[in-house]
């Protein structure tokens, strides 16, 4: 896939990110977000997601992620 094609696929930020949407998202990981907390968080979420969208530019889809298993070390821990 060419760079131009990738750029064309960029998904615009959903606006506005509402407090209700944030409450629903938080609930999916079992986190209760009271209405006033969710409202306060709305202003923080936009720059947060802007930061995450920046990753589209710097992460290559074919790159192996850096997070790794270290099974050799786990074996040492078991023996040790």
């Amino acid at each position, binding site marked *: 896939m060419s760079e131009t094609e990738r750029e064309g696929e960029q998904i615009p930020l959903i606006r506005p990110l509402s407090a209700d949407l*944030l409450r629903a*998202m*938080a609930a999916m*990981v*079992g*986190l*209760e*977000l009271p209405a006033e*907390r969710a409202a*306060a*968080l709305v202003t*923080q*979420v936009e*720059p*947060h997601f802007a*930061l*995450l969208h*920046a*990753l*589209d*530019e*710097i*992460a*290559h*889809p074919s*790159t*192996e*992620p*850096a*997070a790794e298993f*270290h099974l050799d*070390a*786990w074996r*040492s*821990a078991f*023996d*040790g």
Partner: protein
Amino acid sequence: MAERRRDALCDLPLLDLAELIRTRQISPVEATERVLERIVSLNERLNAFITVLDEESLQEARNAEREILAGHYRGPLHGVPISVKDLFATKGIRTTAGSRVLAQHRPHADATVVTRLREAGAVLIGKTNMLEFAYAAVHPDYGPALNPWDPTRSSSGSSSGSAVAVAAGMGYGSIGSDTGGSIRIPAAYCGIVGLKPTYGRVSRHGGIPVSWSADHFGPMTRTVADAAALLGPIAGQDPRDPTSADIPVPNYAEKIDAGIAGRRIGITDAYLRQHVDPTVEAPVNRALTTLERLGATIEEVTLPPPSETVPALLAILMPEATAYHLPWLRSQPDSYSQAVRERLELGALTPAVSYLQAQQARRRIVDEFLEAMKRVDLLVTPTTPTAATPLEGDLTTGDDAAPEVLAALINFTGPFDLTGFPAISVPCGFTESGLPVGLQLVARPWEESMLLAAAHSYEQETDWHRRLPPAIPA
């Protein structure tokens, strides 16, 4: 006003005290008593410690004294009062992580770094104040550790209490943790040395995590040689930390005088001048001139900019932090400060895809840094874009959890938590208003020996590290 120098016993470098102890000119008990007196005189004002181990430390000092007199000298930490950040588990001793959540937490065992300090004979003087869970904000139950150069200025964090304690002579060194700059930034703000070793060099076992894949533990001291003396005993593989590396630990002290002549130093605008305050840029430029005079050569390199490295770091550390805190965030969210709670909630809203994209970016960024460092031995940057900022409205004391504010502070330090490369902050001057400025040197993975030797060589050409903060009484 004439600059005051570090002459009193409490203000000596760790290795100077070690020599006095080894040669039996000073007993560990006397050194510990003097440090405890200094803590009594300063801690109420500077708030560097959460727990002072007065009785326990005196008992440890007596044990050390007995061993040394019996001819069992363990090495340069033997009988030396040292503190640790209050996120390292200490058996039976309160370990709060600067939080209300763990206000009464007494671990069953010591963290590996604490065990290793004890094995080296160090006297544990206390547990230092820190930002809540090392996550960039002060919890109001503890309050900020105040900067000894100017108490109206921030000591930043998250290892703020460790930096303040070392700068103000309340112990001869401390162990901090660094996930975005939490050793190096407070070290720069408080005019001391802060070393973040290579990821995997020091065991993370028993340290309360921010981010498993970006947390680093390391020494905070008054000189580079002291940092080398503290790193050796705490470094090395630990079967209880699966990410600790099976790589031999060199004798750092032996190689400290290797110098910097012939070393190639890489610089680039994005890590030297962009968004850097002139009061920081000027001393850093002078430091580069000093490094050249010492025989290093300086050349331009191309590096992934902070605009790439810092978002990748935050996209990794924020959900990792939330994963650790999720049970408490569900059960007692009001125990957190507003800023930390917001950061943890933002972490919960981070998609798994973003986390993996950040790990993909991390792989590429590490490769690019390694490629750049085939041509150079070291990188040099300012440690922070500014000197210590006013405490009022500072990131660490405000309620604003905005990611872009945090990102700006860690522009120069965060990239090396993402890549895991070793990095050290050393004092390189003062602003006109008397605030310390930090110079950061970065080496390739596992090359702490070279990094320490270069930093030591620079330090020997300057006297910034010998100056005494005004908070210390005459």
